[in-house]
């Protein structure tokens, strides 16, 4: 069953068509890769799904309901969270506080109960779930460190933890392997699988082909804003269009 369905999505910026009539589906519980050369429109696609852009045409369905044109926060409340290309964290906060901000969605509180202290129970729950996620991501012993002091791999893990603590159904990951050495990449791949096993569907944009091929169940290939191909890594690897436009043969055409 498709948890996310992109239908004939088109996005224009002025005269430029960044995405052109792209459709694909993401099955529940899968790791779905979004690949393509630079400028292919992957990031634009991401921002459309996450609500940072409003599509010019077409529709985006999440669990069968349209989320087109909703605000990022609204979309995230319905269960889609994204991580960012650069290691975007609240650098000035501790690891624990970072994750605590992430609990926003699950346990909402209002200003009056925050003042009077009525939300103690909710606060406690938020802290507990934050701690659980930190342990899950292997950051438990670093919780009092400032986010900016973490090594790169842990920063990425923290970024995922922030996303994970809001208990999303779908996680959009933007280049989670960028700048990682092979060892870090391997660790990150394991974490990603672990997240999926906890029941979260993942869509990721990535350049690292090895990681993509090893990790993803399904791939969608974009080139110049158009859908080039889709399917399992094996199918994509053998699709002549992809081969010629991106992978094998005259690669990088």
């Amino acid at each position, binding site marked *: 069953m498709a948890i996310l369905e992109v239908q004939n999505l088109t996005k224009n910026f002025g005269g430029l068509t960044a995405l052109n009539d792209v459709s694909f589906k993401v099955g529940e519980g899968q790791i779905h890769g979004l690949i393509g*050369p630079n*400028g292919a429109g992957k990031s634009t696609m991401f921002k459309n799904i996450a609500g940072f852009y409003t599509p010019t045409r077409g529709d985006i369905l999440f669990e069968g309901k349209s989320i087109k044109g909703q605000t990022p926060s609204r979309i995230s409340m319905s269960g889609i969270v994204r991580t960012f290309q650069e290691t975007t964290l609240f650098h000035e906060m501790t690891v624990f506080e970072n994750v605590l901000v992430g609990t926003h969605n699950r346990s909402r509180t209002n200003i009056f109960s925050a003042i009077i202290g009525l939300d103690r129970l909710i606060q406690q729950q938020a802290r507990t779930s934050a701690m659980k996620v930190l342990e899950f991501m292997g950051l438990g012993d670093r919780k009092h460190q400032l986010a*900016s*002091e973490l090594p790169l791999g842990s920063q990425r893990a923290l970024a995922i933890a922030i996303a994970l603590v809001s208990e999303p159904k779908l996680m959009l990951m933007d280049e989670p392997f960028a*700048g*990682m050495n*092979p060892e870090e990449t391997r660790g990150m791949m394991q974490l990603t699988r672990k997240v999926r096993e906890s029941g979260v569907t993942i869509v990721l944009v990535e350049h*690292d*082909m090895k990681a993509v091929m090893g990790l993803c169940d399904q791939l969608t290939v974009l080139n110049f804003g158009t859908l080039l191909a889709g399917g399992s890594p094996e199918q994509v690897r053998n699709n002549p269009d992809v081969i010629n436009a991106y992978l094998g043969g005259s690669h990088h055409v």
Partner: protein
Amino acid sequence: MKLSVQDLEVNYNNVAALKQISLEVSDGAFVTLIGSNGAGKSTTLRTISGLVKPSGGRICLDDQRIDMLSADKILRLGIAHVPEGRRIFKDLSVAENLYLGAYIHQDKAQIDLDLDKVYSRFPRLEERKGQHARTLSGGEQQMLSIGRSLMSRPRILLLDEPSLGLAPIIVQEIGHILREINQQGVTVILVEQNADLALQLADYGYVLETGRIAMQDKAELLADNEHVKKAYLGI
């Protein structure tokens, strides 16, 4: 004009971005730095051109240390940097952008000759010289960015991801132009994620991984290297 970089180190908010990078670029060479996103390629270029101050190591041009100089001084020594994302002056006209490239020069006649040269290399720019640069397409902006740098008469040209976001035929055209520039005696240091293109063009390549130089060799040999093929060429 030999550029040598020794044990260069750069830190961004406590995270080491470059660790012990050493490069040797001889006069007239065409060198490329490849590597995945975030490996430190751009940082290396930005450090050489003086935009980022290193926390360790040294950069020398011939025998002169340049790592403490500001970007505008380094340009005067003949190192021009075509930054990532073109960074043209969008509210200035095309011609004004090009003239600004020759900011460090005073000889009007020679500047006009250079301008003609740039126009003949990029005819599209001449057609649009009066337009605001923001009206240019992505490819034209990249050409403007390169043309602007050429106006400073560089001996060494640093290019940061010139193919980013451009269509294949323009990428090929830019590659062609870079080759021409190099053949006219300008040293070129090219940073590319499109490793395939970069290795075709360059004589020598460095592979960066997480802020370190993981490999270095002649470009042809790197292109044939199994590791490079797997990791960066997608084969």
